[in-house]
C-alpha cells in the first residue's frame, strides 16, 4: 500500500524546526490557539458575548479566505494546520470590542488573501497575517476601529454600547492626569479598590479584545514557553525597547502596561515565518519593534504603534537573517586552523 509506506524524504520550506523531533506545524499552531484562550475568556467576562462573536467572525473570515485561496491555486486545503484559525483569533484580539460583526470577517478574509494567499501560503508570507488584516481594517473602517471601545464591566452579557477612549489615546490627547482619571471609572474587584497599574495588569480597561489583560496574556505565554513553542529573545527585547522609549514619555507605566505591547510581544512578533532565525537577529528585531512602538506612540500620529512597528520590522527580517546568519557547522574549527 503506497499510502501506508513511511515517507522517507520530506521537503518543506524554512524555517525548519528540528526540536523537539516530530513536531508539526499543526501541533505548534494549535498550541498557540490554546494559549490564546485565557485572554479570550477574560474578554468575554468583561466585554460580553460580543467579544466571542467577533472572534468567531474573524476566524470564519480567515478560514473562508484560506479555503478560497487553496481552491484558486488548486493546492491541498491547509486548514488543519491551524494557522488560519490562529490568524483569525489574533485579528479579533487586536480590534475594538464594539465593532459591527461583519467587519472582522471582511478583514480576516482580505488579510489571508492579500498577506498570505498571494505570496504562496503559509511560510511564504512576508508580513504577519493578523496584523496586515488589522492594517486593512484600520484603513477600511477607520471610525469603528478607533472609537468602538466598550466600557469593561463584569458579567455583562449584552454590552449597553457605551464607549470610551483607551488610556493611551487619552494620554496622547489630554495628558497624564486625564488618563489616570479614566481608571476611576473602571470597576473594582470584591477585594477593594485597585490602583491604575493593578487594573492594567488584570485588564480592567477599555482596549482591544485580547490585549487588555496582561496577566492572562502572560498565562498563555507561560504555557507556550513551557511547551517550548516560543523563546524569550523576541518578547523580552520588544518589551525592553518599549519600556526604554517609555522613559521619554509622560508615563512609563502606561506605556509599558497599556496598549497591545504584551500581546504583540508574545504572540505577534514571535511568529516563526516573519521573525529572524538566530537569537542575535531576534534580539535586534525585538529591540527595533520596541523602539518603533515608542516612537510612533510618543512622536507619531497614532496613540498605539505595536501593529505598525511589527509590520515595519517584518520588512527587515530577510536583511536580519543575512546580517546575523546561523553559524555554519565547524566554522570555528576553520578559524582555529587558519
Amino acid at each position, binding site marked *: 500500500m503506497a499510502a501506508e509506506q513511511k515517507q522517507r524524504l520530506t521537503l518543506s520550506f524554512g524555517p525548519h524546526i528540528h526540536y523537539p523531533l516530530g513536531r508539526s506545524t499543526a501541533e505548534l499552531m494549535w498550541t498557540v490557539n490554546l494559549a490564546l484562550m485565557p485572554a479570550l475568556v477574560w474578554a468575554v467576562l468583561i466585554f460580553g458575548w460580543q467579544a466571542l462573536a467577533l472572534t468567531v467572525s474573524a476566524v470564519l473570515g480567515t478560514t473562508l479566505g484560506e479555503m478560497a485561496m487553496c481552491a484558486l491555486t488548486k493546492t491541498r486545503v491547509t486548514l488543519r494546520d491551524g494557522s488560519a484559525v490562529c490568524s483569525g483569533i489574533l485579528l479579533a484580539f487586536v480590534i475594538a470590542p464594539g465593532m*459591527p460583526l*461583519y*467587519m472582522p470577517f*471582511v478583514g480576516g478574509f482580505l488579510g489571508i488573501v492579500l498577506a498570505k494567499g498571494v505570496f504562496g501560503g503559509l511560510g511564504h508570507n512576508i508580513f504577519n497575517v493578523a496584523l496586515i488584516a488589522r492594517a*486593512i481594517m484600520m*484603513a*477600511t*473602517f*477607520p*471610525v*469603528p476601529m478607533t472609537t468602538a471601545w466598550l466600557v469593561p464591566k463584569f458579567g455583562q452579557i449584552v454590552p449597553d454600547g457605551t464607549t470610551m477612549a483607551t488610556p493611551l489615546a487619552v494620554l496622547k490627547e489630554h495628558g497624564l492626569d486625564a488618563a489616570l482619571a479614566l481608571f476611576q471609572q473602571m470597576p473594582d474587584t470584591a477585594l477593594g479598590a485597585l490602583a491604575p497599574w493593578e487594573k492594567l495588569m488584570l485588564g480592567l480597561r477599555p482596549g482591544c479584545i485580547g490585549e487588555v489583560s496582561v496577566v492572562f496574556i502572560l498565562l498563555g505565554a507561560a504555557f507556550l514557553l513551557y511547551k517550548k513553542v516560543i523563546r524569550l529573545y523576541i518578547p523580552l527585547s520588544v518589551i525592553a525597547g518599549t519600556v526604554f522609549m517609555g522613559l521619554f514619555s509622560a508615563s512609563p507605566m502606561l506605556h509599558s502596561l497599556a496598549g497591545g505591547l504584551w500581546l504583540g510581544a508574545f504572540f505577534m512578533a514571535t511568529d516563526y515565518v516573519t521573525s529572524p532565525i538566530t537569537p542575535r537577529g531576534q534580539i535586534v528585531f525585538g529591540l527595533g519593534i520596541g523602539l518603533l512602538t515608542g516612537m510612533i506612540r510618543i512622536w507619531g500620529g497614532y496613540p498605539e504603534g505595536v501593529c505598525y512597528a511589527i509590520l515595519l520590522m517584518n520588512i527587515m527580517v530577510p536583511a536580519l537573517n543575512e546580517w546575523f546568519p546561523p553559524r555554519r557547522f565547524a566554522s570555528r574549527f576553520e578559524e582555529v586552523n587558519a
Partner: protein
Amino acid sequence: MGACVRREFVKGIFRENPVLVLMLGLCPTLAISVSVKNAIGMGAAATFVLVASNAIIALAGRFFPSKIRIPCFIVVIATFVTMVEMVMGAYLPALNAALGIFIPLIVVNCIILGRAEAFAAHHGVLPSILDGLGMGMGFGLTLLMVAFIREVLGSGKFWGITISQVYSSTGAVHPAAVMVMAPGAFFVIAFIMGFIAWRRERQLEQKRAAAIALMSETRV
C-alpha cells in the same frame, strides 16, 4: 486598409492599454478615479486632446527640428489643453472644479506625450487620429472601470447617488474608506492587471499546447 484601421484603433483599448499594459498616466488615474462622473470628464478631455494633438503632430511633425521636438509637442498639446480648460470652465464649471489641477496637468500627461513621440511623429494623419482615439478610449474606459469599483466600494455611491441607505457611512454597513484613498486605486489597478496577466499566460499556454500537439501529429 480596413484591418489596419481596426488594429490601430483597438490596440489602445486592449493589447496596448495605456494604463493597464503600458502603465502610463497612473497619476491622473489615482487622483481622478474616485467617482464615475470625474472619470468620464477626464477620459473625454484626454481623448479630445490626444486625438487633436496626434493629428497636428502627424501633419506638422516633420517640420519640427529633432533636437527640440519635445518642447514643440508640448506647445501643441498645451494649446488643446487650454481650449479644453476654457470650454470646461465656461460650460461645465462643477466638473472643472472637481477635476481641478488635473486638467492643466494633461499637458504633461505621459500618455499624450508618449503617443506623440512613439506614434504620431512618424505615422500618417488617419492612423494617428485612430491611435489617439483608441488610446484615449482605453484610458477613459480604464478610468471608468476603476472609478466604478472605487465609488461603489469606497463611498457606497454611484454617479454621486447613495446606492442604499443601509450601505452608507451612516448605515449598518460601512463602505471601505481605503478605496477612496490612493492605496485603493493601487489595489484595484493591481487586481485588474493581475487578471490580465493571468489571461495572457493562459492564452500562451494554450497556444504552446496547440503547437506541441501539432508537432507530435506531424511527427506521426
